[in-house]
């Protein structure tokens, strides 16, 4: 009898244990939930002055999701993080997402309803975020910008104006950047000199040089580029169009066009893509270009001496020089000048926007003032820590100047992978700081390369191929069907043109024609009708 009762109790206990486990699994994020409940009334509104006063001196706690461009190796509790939390009196629950997956993953996070307190997003120039703003999902920040002027001053007024909605509200803190970020073509000057190749000045001369390199060493990759096509941003400008953007239609005035069109409707883009296709089929372009899944394969090839010419963001300069110096001490690196294109267009720069993504604050965040207090700290008392980090760990002082340490000279807890996830807002005034850039070159042990890089920077910026479209103006058809039309008619042609041997110029023309007939032309018309000011942006 006792045995039977024991069995029954066992069954009941087992069932209870299973149910308890299920409930425990379902009740994650309890703390977050509570935080949301207590502050639910704040949705879309700013916190009261009383809350702001009460929260002063308290440890700031918030969750934070951001993308990382560097290695996704962040681990919580590192020495850099601890030091930052101590100095800022903050505890931040950081979650990182590699940049390539960020936009998709953050949308999934938002759709799940479990939204972090502070997170990065593309901002109100994307319709879905504008809609969420209007629905009261994010915190209105006007009052905080007035309260913490350092934050307001970090961003140019023109950018704040662009982000202000028709009711005068601002919801988004932009990650400002200097729009002038040239994409350089680095080349192995020693190889060029050895083969008697003069520095190319035109696209044709570049092609001839690549042929000679291929003929002299079959194993050398003549040309490679950072995926996606951004790596060849400099080369694209030689074909006279705005890569990944809208620019003047054929025959239009470049300064004040009446009609603007997306890059895939320009003659220059087609020529550029089929030029790269020809290079590839002739064995002059890296056969892994646009095929390899790791975007930095091109950089690795160049820095390990396998490639002769590399197209890449100039920001990688110090790393490229210092790494190649170690693997091939005899190597000399040059930077190609802007090249003249086949139609006579002079190469230059494709300016980026004034910001690249930025931060939204959850309208239900428990302590928004605490976050702004923290952000203000990073721009005032904590500014030095934000910029340089910790002496002896992330920088050293030489002749009274703070020199950032190259990543390979730092301990594991102070590497880029640990520091980048804790970055927030960099003031516009610091985005092009020549002293800081020079210090980075010197800190990497390649200070001698700085002067050439600076000179080329100026040379590239002389001719600009900017984005003409104002993305705060939405074309209704573009919002409704733009993505589908692009995917249905253009994506395989545009993404595949360079690497698909079977794709011809006729296929390209046919796809463009079908796209325009299916609604693409209407999108172009709507954009041109709604956007009155189409003059060339100046940087």
């Amino acid at each position, binding site marked *: 009898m006792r045995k039977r009762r024991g069995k029954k109790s066992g069954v009941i206990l087992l069932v209870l244990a299973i149910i308890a486990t299920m409930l425990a699994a379902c009740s994650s994020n309890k703390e977050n939930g509570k935080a949301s409940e207590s502050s639910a009334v704040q949705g879309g509104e700013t916190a009261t002055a009383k809350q702001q006063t009460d929260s002063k001196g308290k440890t700031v706690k918030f969750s934070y999701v951001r993308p990382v461009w560097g290695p996704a190796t962040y681990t919580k509790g590192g020495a850099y993080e601890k030091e930052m939390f101590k100095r800022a009196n903050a505890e931040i629950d950081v979650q990182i997402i590699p940049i390539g997956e960020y936009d998709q993953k953050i949308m999934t996070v938002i759709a799940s309803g479990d939204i972090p307190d502070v997170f990065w997003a593309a901002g109100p120039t994307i319709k879905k975020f504008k809609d969420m703003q209007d629905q009261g999902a994010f915190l209105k920040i006007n009052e905080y910008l007035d309260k913490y002027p350092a934050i307001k001053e970090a961003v140019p007024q023109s950018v704040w104006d662009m982000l202000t909605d028709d009711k005068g509200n601002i919801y988004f803190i932009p990650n400002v950047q200097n729009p002038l970020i040239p994409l350089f073509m680095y080349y192995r000057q020693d190889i060029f000199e050895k083969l008697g190749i003069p520095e190319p000045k035109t696209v044709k001369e570049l092609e001839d040089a690549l042929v000679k390199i291929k003929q002299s060493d079959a194993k050398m990759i003549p040309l490679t580029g950072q995926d996606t096509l951004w790596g060849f941003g400099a080369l694209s400008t030689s074909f006279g169009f705005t890569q990944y953007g809208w620019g003047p239609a054929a025959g239009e005035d470049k300064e004040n066009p009446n009609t603007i069109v997306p890059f895939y409707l320009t003659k220059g883009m087609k020529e550029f893509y089929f030029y790269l296709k020809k290079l590839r089929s002739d064995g002059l372009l890296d056969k892994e270009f646009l095929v390899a899944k790791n975007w930095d394969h091109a950089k690795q090839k160049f820095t390990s001496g396998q490639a002769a010419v590399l197209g890449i963001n100039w920001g990688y300069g110090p790393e490229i020089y210092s790494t190649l110096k170690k693997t091939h001490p005899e190597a000399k690196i040059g930077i190609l000048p802007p090249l003249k294109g086949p139609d006579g267009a002079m190469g230059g720069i494709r300016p980026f926007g004034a910001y690249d993504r930025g931060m939204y604050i959850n309208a239900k965040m428990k302590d928004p003032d605490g976050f702004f207090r923290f952000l203000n700290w990073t721009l005032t008392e904590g500014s030095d820590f934000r910029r340089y980090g910790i002496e002896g760990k992330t920088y050293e002082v030489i002749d009274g100047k703070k020199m950032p340490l190259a990543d390979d000279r730092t301990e594991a807890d102070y590497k880029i992978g640990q520091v980048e996830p804790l970055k927030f807002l960099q003031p516009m005034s610091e985005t092009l700081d020549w002293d800081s850039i020079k210090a980075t070159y010197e800190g990497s042990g390649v200070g001698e390369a700085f002067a050439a890089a600076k000179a080329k920077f100026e040379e590239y910026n002389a001719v600009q191929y900017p984005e003409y479209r104002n993305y705060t103006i939405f074309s209704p058809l573009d919002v409704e069907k733009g993505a589908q039309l692009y*995917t249905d008619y253009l994506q395989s042609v545009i993404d595949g043109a360079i690497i698909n*041997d079977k794709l011809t110029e006729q296929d390209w023309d046919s796809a463009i024609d079908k796209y325009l007939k299916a609604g693409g032309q209407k999108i172009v018309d709507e954009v041109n009708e709604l956007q009155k000011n189409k003059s060339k942006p100046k940087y």
Partner: protein
Amino acid sequence: MRNIWRWRYFYLLLTPTLLYFIVFSYIPFYGVVIAFKNFQPFLGIWDSPWVGWKNFETMFSSVKFPELIRNTVLISIYRILFGFPVPILFALLLNEVRVMWFKRSIQTIAYFPHFLSWVIFGGIIYNVVGPSGIINLVLEKLGIDAINLSANPDLFRPLVVVTGILKEFGWAAIIYLASLTGIDPHLYEAAKMDGASKLRQIWHITLTGIRPMIAMLLILQLGSVLDAGFEQILILSNPVVYSVGDIIDTYVYRVGLLEADYGLATAVGLFKGVIAAILIVSANHIIRRTGEKSLW
């Protein structure tokens, strides 16, 4: 009622499972209404505006729709044709191995890829078949021209099928191996006495013994014909092979999820669910008609 009370402890044991399915499989059915809405995360499901059949129209009006259906169904059929028999053959072969350490080693090696994500396994595959992969390196050393394996529309579907088999055949064989243990050993002894060869024994006893299991798994696999392996294709594909490799799920990923059009993604999910249900019921009916043991 008396019966329920009599078997109350069994019902009690069943409760967590029922709860699990109610909470995680039936209650979420409410979300199906998203297929008929322009879902806005911050408005919630109910407050998001209704759009009728618009999400379905978007999907069916796509000029790529026939191509997507063709690719999805073809890849799935190839998987069934070439992939379905592999774990059965593997289980039969392994069943005949008498050296236990060898049998276990092979089993472990065959299971292992199942535990790797497609991101990792895809990376390994790329290092084998990529432009600078092992195959092309060997060909280069032998003085033979390199083959474009990773960005070749003619080879993409075979690549998907073969790599899919490589990754999963070991794991899929487990259920057959378990089923094989249920066959009465006396049957083999009797067959031997009657002079049956090894092949005859496999044909008449082993295969016959696991036939209900084969039928059941075939029905289940037919039900997922519209799931051609999203993660694998996303990892292995590139723009060159879209024409032969773009399936419903990868398309929905680009147009639905990347653009946060959850209504479209749900509509496609619902469409696939209805087709899967029809296919399962039909397959089950056909198998029952042939006299095999069916799902219900």
